[in-house]
Every structure is written in structure tokens, then in C-alpha cells.
């Protein structure tokens, strides 16, 4: 079933891609092929592959339980929040929070994960910023 859905999604993607390719505005100065042809070929391959996947699906993959899916969704949410917060609150705090969250969800005790997260953050800051001189996000506190 998963592969059938995957095939349909792939086909829709191919169609959307082909349509996006067709509405590319061509410049008045163009080579013999133009900017549309290759994307259209790609859309064709994408569509054919999707049809083949739809017609001949593999065995069902092992999907995780709903709880695990929510787990991944939550991790993604934390990562997005991290990406957005990075320039606002600075590298060390943001990283400590995100790393603590991840190691907590991977099964460390709450207190232990707080310590691990903080150490991870400080360790990366020390190695990458202080030793290697990489510029990391600066928050209002300067780190």
C-alpha cells in the first residue's frame, strides 16, 4: 500500500514539476534547447518511475507506531524552532536546549540530559569557535 501511495504522490509531483517547467519565462535570447527541455525530460523520468512503483510495489515497509511518528514530528518542530531561534538567542543557549531535548528523547534521564546537552553545546562552542575560529550565531549575550 505504501508504495502505491508513493507512486501516486510521485506522479503528482512529476505533473506539478512539468507544469512548473512549462511556465518558465523564456528569455528572448536563448540557445537552441532552452531552459524548459531538460526539466521536462526529468519530469518524464519521474512520472515513468512513479508509474512503475505504483504498478509493482515492494513489500510493505515497517512503519513505526503513531507514538514514534509523533516523536519524529516533535523532533522536527524542535529543530525548526532551533533554526529560527539561533540568531535570536545565540548559539550556546539554543544548542544546549536542542541537544538536551534530543538526548532526553533518546532515553537519557531528564537531569542527565540537561547536563549532556549543556556539555555538548559548550564542547562544540569550545572546539569550533574558540579553537577553530568558526563564526557561530551570536545572541544578545555575545555567545
Amino acid at each position, binding site marked *: 500500500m*505504501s*508504495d502505491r501511495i*508513493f507512486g501516486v504522490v*510521485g506522479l503528482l509531483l512529476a505533473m506539478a*514539476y512539468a507544469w*512548473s517547467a512549462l511556465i*518558465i519565462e*523564456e*528569455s528572448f535570447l*536563448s*540557445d*537552441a*534547447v*532552452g*531552459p524548459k527541455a*531538460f*526539466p521536462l525530460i526529468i*519530469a518524464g*523520468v*519521474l512520472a515513468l*518511475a*512513479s508509474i512503475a*512503483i505504483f504498478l*509493482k510495489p*515492494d513489500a510493505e*515497509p515497517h*512503519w*513505526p507506531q503513531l507514538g*514514534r511518528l509523533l*516523536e*519524529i514530528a516533535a*523532533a*522536527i518542530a524542535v*529543530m*525548526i524552532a*532551533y*533554526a*529560527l531561534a*539561533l540568531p535570536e538567542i545565540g*548559539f550556546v543557549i539554543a*544548542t544546549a536546549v*536542542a*541537544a538536551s531535548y*534530543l*538526548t532526553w*528523547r*533518546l*532515553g*537519557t534521564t531528564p537531569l542527565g540530559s540537561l547536563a*549532556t*546537552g549543556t556539555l*555538548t*553545546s559548550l564542547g*562544540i562552542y569550545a572546539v*569550533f569557535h574558540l579553537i577553530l*575560529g*568558526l*563564526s*557561530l*550565531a551570536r545572541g544578545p549575550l555575545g555567545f
Partner: protein
Amino acid sequence: MDTLSSLADGFAIALTWQNLLLALLGCFLGTIMGALPGLGPSNGVAILIPLAFTLGLGATPSLILLTSVYYGAMYGGRISSILLNIPGDEPAMMTCLDGYPMAQQGRAGEALSLSGVASFVGAFLATWGLILLAPQLVKIALLFGPAEYFALFTLAFATLGGVSSTNQAKTAFAAALGLGLAMVGVDTQTGVPRFTYGEVHLYDGIDFLVAIVGLFALSEVFIFLEHRHGSADAESRKIVIGRLMPSFALLRQCTPTMLRTSFLGFLAGVLPGAGASLGSFISYSMEKKLVDKEGTFGTGDPRGVAAPEAGNNAAAGGALVPMLALGVPGSGTTAVLLAVLLALNITPGPLLFAQQPDVVWGLIAALFIANFMLLAMNIPMIGLFTRVLMVPPRILMPVVAMVSFVGIYGISGSSFDLLVMIGFGLMGWVLRKLDVPLVPVILGTLLGNAMESNMRRAITIDNGNWLTLIDSPLSIALWSLAVIGFVLPMVFGKVLKGRMKMAKDEEGAVTD
């Protein structure tokens, strides 16, 4: 003689204190990354690319660092195979078969050092193979015009799924997806924006480093989150290392095996679509047929440890031949190394040998240096690396995730790229669940623009005649190979994959 003097020049470039230090660092990090289950050579190199890049290292030093990581990871993969019966990466799968039984018999130290020597022999001979073969391939490659290059790219994609691929439709899907992503941004030939939907950040395209780190490293984090209660917590087992040095008699017994399998592995590495996993697989099978008279393979035969290790390290060296000489990688990790070259503004291919010989020969010299360092490191320091295996993934994976973020943020300093990377991580996870290979996606994003511009150049030269793509004997040959390479796995793929997976069923979609 010409080759030898070029090589000497290469050593002159590589033998500076800074470069030696970088090689040492790369070997060390690479071995650790190879040893940790879930972090293969592709992942390892991918995470470190942004680092080398943002450190402002020059072309040759960055290459030395990253190829040392590559070779180191190939060495390291065997450690967890032997000690834990979990392959550190896919090519090390075959090493489990005899390595783990040896460890159970209390001969872990011997197995580790023997496989270290085998890795060295394989990689050392393969580096010589690279020196001899790559310049010959360059001569052929100089005959290539744009039409032939287009055919060559197609060949690379058609064979990328490899002989062991089970579902070619999914490989094709992945390749098209990667190529499609490469099209995003301003068209280089006419200057019109494509697939940008008005988003300014997309005008200069999707950075392939962002795609690679997201697809490989972040998707690995998601896989671990999914399996938290399963394999994520490494059991702390008591491992008896035993004596460290293999006896002289044992080395002599294994020497013919190592020489044969190095040759075979190198060939598997050079051929498109074979790669290191297949290299170690055929090496093991051949040795089993040739020397296993008493049926000891699979029960802890030292030759069964030496064969796949020599094979997969030789294949790793062999895979560099098409990557350097043609600019078309044949495996996942060499695709990542190609990304390194492109990020450094070096275009591999025949002209690289003519125009930037210092890069090529410096790199080759670095491979030799890395190889000796790894041998020296892997035998006495093996205890240290085994201790690294005890770091539980619940602490390790967040570190991997955070280092990925740091690397990408270091390049661009924009949150937008981080969001794109998270998107790629999610995509990588879904694709891996659906058993879609990730390497073609990467290769597609890397080569998409070059492939398109070669096609357009060929057709424009011939006044818009599309048939020019199949006009010369060379391109017809390449196209036929591509078709054969694509169709063949549909017939043989299932059988081969079944045999390779007899010991373990792994979830990894990251080959090599």
C-alpha cells in the same frame, strides 16, 4: 618515470606539517566515524565538508583532510563488525561473518589487527592502481565531447543502483528527484529563474552541501529517534581483546588471500555501479570457493576476515579512478567527495590532471600518507577505538545533529538553509523507509547542472539537432552500456542482494 616524478612532486606538496596534522586528524576522526554504527564514510565526510570549508583551508589541505576521513572510515567499519557483530557501514557487512566468531573465541585482537593489515594491503595496492590507471583513463576521456559526456552521466545514473539493486524504478525516481532539485535556481545559460516561486533564497540554487548533510546525517538522527527502544542503546558487553599482534605464520597464511582480493576489489571499485559493498562481497565469495577446503569460513577463519577487508578498501581506492579521471563518481562516498571538489571550485575530469597536477598528485600522496598513518594507528590504538564504541547513541546522535547544524550555519549564516536541511532530513527518512536509495538523489543534485549544460551545448553546436546525442560510436557505446547496466539488475539484483544480506537485515539505505 614520468609518473614517479609527478608522485614525488605530490609528496613534496603533501609533506608539510599542516598537511600531516590534517591527515592525522582525518584518519582519527574517520576511523571513529567508520566504527560507530550508523555513521558510514558518506556521513562522515558529509558532516566534515562544511568544517573544512569554513576553516578556510586551501584546496589541497581540505582534500587531504577529507580523503583521510574517507580512508579512515573504510578502516573503521570493521571494528564494530568484529566486536559487536554490527557492521559500522555497509561494506563491512561481510567482515561480520568471520570476524565476530573470531571475537567470540577470544581472538578479537588478532582479528582486528589482521583486518587492519588487510585494509592496508588493499588500500595500498589500490592507490598504486589509481596511479597507473587514472592517467590512461584521462587519455580516453580527452576524446569526449559534450554529447559523450551527457551519455556518460546517464551511464553513471543508470548503473548507480548497482548490481545489487532490487528496484530500479526507485533508483530512477531518486535520480530524477536529485536532477530536478538541481534545476532550482537561475538558469546559467539564459538567466531566467526556474522553480524558485519568487523565493529569493532559491535564486542561486539549493546548496548540495545542505542536501547531503540533511539527507545523510539528519535522517540518521530520525532513524535513531524512531528506534529508541530497540537497538539505539548499545548493550555494554564485555569484550576480550586478546593478543594484539597477528603471528607471522597467520600473516603468511593470509597473504595470497589479501593479494587476490585487493585486485578483485579494485576492479569492483573502478567499474561503475559496483562499489565497495560488492567488492567485499565478491572477494569473500571468491576466497570461500578457492581456499575453504575444510569448511571453516563462517566459523572464525582469519582468511575470511582478511578477504572482505582487503576487498572493500581496495574498492574504495578503485572508486576514486572514475571520480578523478572522468568527474563521474561510481559510488555514494565518491559522490560526496565530488561534492568536496566542487565546493572547492575544482572540476574533476581529464583537464584536472593537465591543469592542476598539484591537486591530483598531492591528493594521491596524501592517500599513501593516510594509509601508513592508519596502519600505525589501528594496531596499537585499537583499544581506544573500541572504547569509543561504548559511547551510547543517545548522547552521540544529538552531537551529530548539532555538528551538522553548526557546519551548515557556518557556511551561509542563514536560518533558511537550516530549514532546507531539516526538510532534506525528513525527506531522507521517508525515502529510506520506502527503500529508495539516497545516493542517486545526491548525485543528481551534484551533476544535474553539468549534465544539462552538456546536453544543451551538444545540441546547440549541431544547430538544434537532438540526434547528435547518439551520433558518435563512443556515445552509442556509452548509451548501450547504460541500458545494459540499468536492465541487468532487474534480472540478477534479487539473487545477489539476497546473498549479501544472508547474515544481516539492515535498514541503511546509505551504500558504501
